[in-house]
């Protein structure tokens, strides 16, 4: 009777141990260890290009550019100039250069004769070393420049009228639009 009691007790204890091990888990499993790679988080840069201090947006937003000498009147003998600055303000971690190109200018005016006379007479060029737009060399080709990260390029826009422009245009006004394209080139 006493032996039977002992055997029963031993059986109950054994079952309890097995149940306990299974419940805790791990003890019966194969080993495994893990370690974090600690790779961190990778973030893309912001392609930020500033046109005369204002941020350009993708497929963008117009920025108004003042004349180099505000109030200067445009006549067949006196062209007027504007300065466009393009800054590569991207926050790229590595090397990051862009190419900024002035597109073909277009002139709009309530006076169709003025608009017609401006056609072909709005030209762009890179700003010369003298920083005076009158000294720049203008061609029919759009001005372009490579701009490194954090750097700024300056462009000149020359607006002129041919010598045979009718005098009756005074005091008409015109709006000149120049598309500026900034492209990542690395």
């Amino acid at each position, binding site marked *: 009777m006493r032996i039977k009691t002992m055997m029963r007790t031993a059986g109950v204890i054994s079952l309890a141990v097995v149940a306990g091990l299974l419940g805790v888990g791990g003890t019966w499993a194969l080993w495994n260890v893990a370690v974090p790679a600690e790779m961190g988080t*990778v973030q*893309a840069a912001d392609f930020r290009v500033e046109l005369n201090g204002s941020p350009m947006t993708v497929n963008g937003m117009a920025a108004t550019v003042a004349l180099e000498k505000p109030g200067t009147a445009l006549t067949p003998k006196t062209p007027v100039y504007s300065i466009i600055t393009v800054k590569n303000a991207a926050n790229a971690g590595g090397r990051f250069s862009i190419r900024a190109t002035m597109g073909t200018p277009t002139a709009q005016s309530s006076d169709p004769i003025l608009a017609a006379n401006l056609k072909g007479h709005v030209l762009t060029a890179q700003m010369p070393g003298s920083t005076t737009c009158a000294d720049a060399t203008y061609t029919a080709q759009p001005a372009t420049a490579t701009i490194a990260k954090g750097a700024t390029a300056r462009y000149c826009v020359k607006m002129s009228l041919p010598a045979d422009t009718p005098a009756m245009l005074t005091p008409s006004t015109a709006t000149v639009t120049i598309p500026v394209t900034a492209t990542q080139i690395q």
Partner: protein
Amino acid sequence: MKKMTKGAIVTGLGVALLLGGGGTLAVWNVEQTANAGTMAAGSMELTSSTGVWTSNLSNNPIPDITEYRIVPGEELTYTQQLEVGLEGDQLEATLSVDTSGVTNGFSNNLTLEDFMVTKAGAADAAITAYNGSADVEKGTYTASATLAFNADHQEDMNQELDLTQVTYVLDQKAPTPAN
């Protein structure tokens, strides 16, 4: 009769004395140390060194990836040393990379490429699948992974790829009993 009784009593006392003295009438026994030695369990360890990010646009390592901003056309590579410790005569293990916790805000333009785990002087272990695994042995391994930012699209400025949960896992292989 009395003499016989006395003789028996004396004889009994003599036998008792002989038994009390021990030895002479004991059964044989010998003793020898088994010398089975001491059993010790093995161990399995995995440690990693501080990883290094590099860019294909520079020869210098990136000091802090959290301050770095990747751009289209750029490739970043993460390299790290792993120390695999396997102590156990029958201990075999596989190494894997758990990327289940990766959060990717990019629109298919930036992905974590396959991990490569190599060991100098031994058969290379290549974890080629995104969540693959490879057999490893004790020693130092080099793990590397590459991120390539697709240059064909304009999307994904300022997006993030969170790799903080990437983990290396060393799993023991189930031993195969001898037949």
